[in-house]
């Protein structure tokens, strides 16, 4: 190529596309129970006996569809967490610093990812007991964020 430009043109682009994601009847049951009753449900595979939350219509391990509902308590054990000091406003609107962690509810075999609140980062320890804090009923809308966050069991640690 003997001829080239004096400048390299760079285009700014942004793809704005609407999407609709169907939760499906299984997750819809979970979300309506959360919205209407502030209850958390998992599913147990009748073959493997593993209890999953969020619920699965089929067992992820053996692929069978033979699963049953199990009501889970809204408390459990903090497995791990991260404190975020930067912002990503386009897709993650939370104001930094914020904390998210993975809480294994009592009786469940998998963890639930969510925000942690009413606690300073320095007070958090893996293995500590946590409990869910829900939005007020009139503010709940069938989203996983109807559960606001997990806080240390019994209220703020400080």
């Amino acid at each position, binding site marked *: 190529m003997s001829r080239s430009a004096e400048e390299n043109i760079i285009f700014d682009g942004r793809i704005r596309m609407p999407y609709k994601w*169907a939760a499906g009847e299984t997750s819809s049951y979970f979300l309506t129970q959360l919205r209407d009753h502030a209850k958390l449900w998992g599913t147990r595979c009748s073959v493997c006996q593993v209890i999953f939350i969020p619920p699965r219509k089929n067992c992820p391990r053996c*692929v*069978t569809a033979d699963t049953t509902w199990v009501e889970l308590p809204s408390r459990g054990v903090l497995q791990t967490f991260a404190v975020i000091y930067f912002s990503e406003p386009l897709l993650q609107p939370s104001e930094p610093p914020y904390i998210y962690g993975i809480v294994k509810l009592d009786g469940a075999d998998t963890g639930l990812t969510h925000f942690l609140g009413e606690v300073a980062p320095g007070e958090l320890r893996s293995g500590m007991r946590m409990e869910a804090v829900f939005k007020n009923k009139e503010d709940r809308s069938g989203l996983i964020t109807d559960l606001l966050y997990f806080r240390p069991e019994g209220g703020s640690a400080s």
Partner: protein
Amino acid sequence: MAQRVGIIGFGQTYHRSHRDDVNGVELINEAVRAALEDAGLTIDDIDAVVIGNMDHFEAVNYVDTWSVDGSGAWMKPLIKLTTGGTTGSTLGIAGYHHAASGLFDVVLVIGWEKNSESDTTGAIITCSDPIFDRFSFSGALPGLAVEASAYIKRYGIKEEDAARVAVRDRAHGANNPYAQLQTPVTIEEVMQSPMLSWPIKLLDICPRSDGAAAVIFAGERKARQLCSQPAWVHYTAVRHSHTYFGDVDYTRLHTLEAAVQELYHHMGIKEPLKELDVVELYQPYSFAGLKWIEAMGLCKPGESPRLIWDGVTDMGGELPFNPSGGVICTNCIGATGLLRIGEAALQVMDRAIGRQVPDVNLALATGFGGAYWSDLMLLGKKPW
């Protein structure tokens, strides 16, 4: 050397315009369980998983990992492939390659799409070059309309000729309980349906579907052990061509011509109309059912309307096309090419209930996508 490979199982969902009762992972699982049941296997028998769709239709970018709960790929070798419209045929060919390599005995191949979750046309526009093509390109439909109008101009084809192709596939779709569209239509109904982009009318073109397909490939030893009549893979051919839509010669489908010539030459096929027994053509709109069978060498350019009107490609004709109803009855895009392979396999295995062509020895499945790309897979009753 590649080892022989047979298809030993096929499963699909009941395809619909909207499957709000399941999410994508659960939709995938329906096809996986159906394929495992069809082959008489459990997930423990699967050595590797190949999955694909078009990411921008659901806006989930790690489909391979995200779908593990449904696909059964938990703790197994897994790869995602996506090549636009040809995704499903690419998946099938990759599944064949996995098994033919001898590195994996039994390979589960999954194609799926939930087209209800996005604006299909908007998503397709993101496939085109952002600098030179995207400002004018308007999705799949106008691209196909350019092809159809160039073809009409060159060979004096009538819109009614294409309508007859749509009538054929809609009649065939009525035999397929899995098809999204199962009601026959008439020439008049096609001609009077709303004009979308001349000469393509609403009933000339495929619908948008939610659906999934799963096909199980096995190396020869396992295939013989696990299945009394596998559909043996005889040959595959692939031609992908252009970046810019302006580079395409719209009067001919060069990729399909080149792919079939390679396949015919390799297989010693001299008279495809006589030697092939059934074709599942990735035919997203009716005019392709004219022009592309010319590209396949079934007749001279411009002569396809005679074959279509004479019923040569109907059920009961010399070479039936799309016994499943084809893409005009169901188009869950990432699954569509794999549905062609699965349906062709059913024909070879003599298990296409309600839509079986008698005495199928050779079945050809095709894939289409991108800037007029073509894929082929030839399946046969006996190993080749």
